[in-house]
């Protein structure tokens, strides 16, 4: 498992439209993460409440299955995304076609769902970041 992180300061400037600076930050961080990746991933999962749909419909194109994960709270999803409901009252918004039943991405996804670990990396990352940056 690779773990990579980068940090970007988002200036709360009136020159940015609301939400636009955050979106640009997400794009920049994603670009950094992808550039740093040493392997081609089988599956990409992002948190829907942190990553707007437009990041992968307007800004970045990925050639691997990519979905945004939404929890129990219903979130609006992009017009080009497709919705998949999964156990645990979670939703996946697929940016492209969902992976086929025989694909490695589907196998990985099913395994994570079965272990209820789909959101775990995000929770761990949040705890780690909080520990690292709590004082700033």
């Amino acid at each position, binding site marked *: 498992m690779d773990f990579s992180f980068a940090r970007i300061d988002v200036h709360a400037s009136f020159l940015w439209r609301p939400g636009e600076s955050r979106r640009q930050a997400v794009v920049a961080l994603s*670009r950094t993460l*992808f*550039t740093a990746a040493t392997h081609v991933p089988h599956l990409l999962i992002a948190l829907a409440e942190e990553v707007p749909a437009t990041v992968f419909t307007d*800004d*970045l*194109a*990925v*050639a*691997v299955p990519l979905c945004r994960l939404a929890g129990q709270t219903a979130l609006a999803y992009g017009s080009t995304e497709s919705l998949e409901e999964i156990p645990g009252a979670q939703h996946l918004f697929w940016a492209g076609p969902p992976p086929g039943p025989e694909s490695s991405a589907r196998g990985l996804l099913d395994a994570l769902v079965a272990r209820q670990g789909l959101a775990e990396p995000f929770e761990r990352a949040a705890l780690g970041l909080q520990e690292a940056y709590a004082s700033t």
Partner: protein
Amino acid sequence: MSDWWRDRKPPRRSTWWHRRRRAAPEPALRWAVLQATPSVARARPVAPPDPTDVAWLMRLQQATDVAGSTVRVAARPVTEAVVSRRAATTRTSLTPDVAARESAGDAGLSLADRLRLVLQPPLESLLPGPAAILEWPAELLPYQLDGVRALLERDRMLLADDMGLGKTVQAIAAMRILCLRRQVTHALLVVPASLINQWRREIDKWAPELRQMPIRGASTERAWQWRAEAHVTIVSYETLRTDFTDNPDSPPRRRVWDLVILDEAQKIKNRDVEVSREAKGLRRRRSWAMTGTPLENKVEDLASILEFVDQSEGAPPLHYAPGPVLLARHAQLQLRRRKSDVLTQLPPKQVIQITLPLLARQQESYTRAEREGIVELKARGETILVQHVLELITRLKQICNIDPASDESAKLADVRERLRVLDEEGHRALLFSQYTDDTFGVAAIARELGEFRPLTFTGGMSGAARDEAIREFKENPLHKILVLSLKAGGVGLNLQEASYVFHIDRWWNPAVERQAEDRSHRMGQLFPVTVFKYTCEGTIEERIQAILASKQQLFDEIIDDVSLDVASRLTSDELFGLFGLTRPVPAGHTEATARSTGIDFEDRCARVLEARGWRVQRTPHSHDGGVDLIASRVDEVGLEQTVYVQCKDHARPVGVEVVRELIGILPVTQPTQAVLAARSGVTAEARLLADRRGVKIWDEEALVALERAAG
């Protein structure tokens, strides 16, 4: 490891710098939009111009007259041109206005201007059409393209197309091209408040790269909004009136606007109102006025609008008097196309006049109100005014809508039946009323027609609420009817979703009614439009209608599309005659008094004051700063008192703006009183403000009483 992802768009590059790279000369010239504005991103190269195009070759020859510096002009693909600083541009390639500037002095053309003129793409490649290098959301109709070309060629224009022909789109398209050509960098758009959001949406659609800045909110907000660097600043007439002050540094006066557009320019038809003076006081290089009814009541309306259109920057104010000069200028400045001439594909409009008897209890209320009203008028004797007659007319018209005593309404019963049929057939409707209250007007009508899930639209609603009502009506077909006030909903809206229009009461002004009907009968309407106009039998509505009809025929023969409202359309004698009364002349006043000029009226007010011991000083008749008389006297305890008097000898009640103007000029450092002398009284809103701010109102009745008291 980046082949599994990529940026959809390359990182955005700054528009104000780029790496210098000297490319090898290209074998053929390529063509691009000249300006390095955001529009460049939307522009796409097209084939080089036809080498047989003589005008193009002439310009190219001049551009490549090797004598000066090399200038690179745009994002790639570009034309690299070697341009002579001394090269003269051919006059035939210029617009009339630029040609005029050049003839005034060649020194006025900078190198940038020359480049622009020489290298800018042909107009046809910017206009919507098959050869367009700009993206447009839709095609324009041929007559609209003609309108855009006319606007581009003229600094001054009155666009007076029939309602619904797309004046807004033509203006936006022309403004967009002017902005792309850098001929306009700051445009000011003055519109009725209810239309600001509609203009914003249309600009978003037709000129998405133009930055807009609506002026609204608190004064601190407006201060920075005026300073914002936007292509288009959008302001309502009301806000312009507030923010345009005598201070030459007040926000609207601070800059010279490249273009000022007045939408619904009939708002400045009266040259004496504040907003009219202010619109004409805007410093500007181009003036466009837009209205479907440039002449509502009298030729002076047209004169006032043309004074705005025709005024040159820095020149003294124009004053056009009715006559051949005005008409000649009008012919040169106005572009007007009629719907029947250019929109032959528009579905027909059918107007049905419905005359109904009042319902039984409604008739009782009406008869009682009319009888009591006439008794009341007669009891007023010499103090009776036109205003009192108009008040009675209003009261009776309101009962014709809904009887407040019984809630009976012949009109609404008929509307209800028709709506049920329309609902079954899947149609929707608009209903206009001149009243907005919850007894006789929009609110009451919406309540009575509750089964059709009506939405309402009135001037009293906030801008956001009005937008929401329109959006909801357009998107939710469960709302079968939209009830609008004629004043707020009658202009500017696009409501093709409805193909039936009801006029529940009559404004007595065909132009205003037609404007309202054209919310539905306009481009985009797929069905024939049916308009129902209601009149109640044997009532005041029918009597006024008869008088107007006899005059309308004569009027139609003189001027096309002109209309009058009731107060100016009917003479005082005719108004009194509606109730079998004759206009009285107050004792001590001759017929000449009744027709007295403004100066006579000032003298009369001065005499009233002098008779009560005031020393009266008259201000100059023009440039009086809003005060006609300043009266002073020392009271019983030795204090000097001062009264500022504004005299308004108008045929109609004066509005709240006059009270506001009077309050505005009162000195704050000394105790003063203010009097507004208005022969025909003031509006309810004006009286409310006057009472609140301690301004006394002298109407004819009060003046007569004061004169009697003075003996």
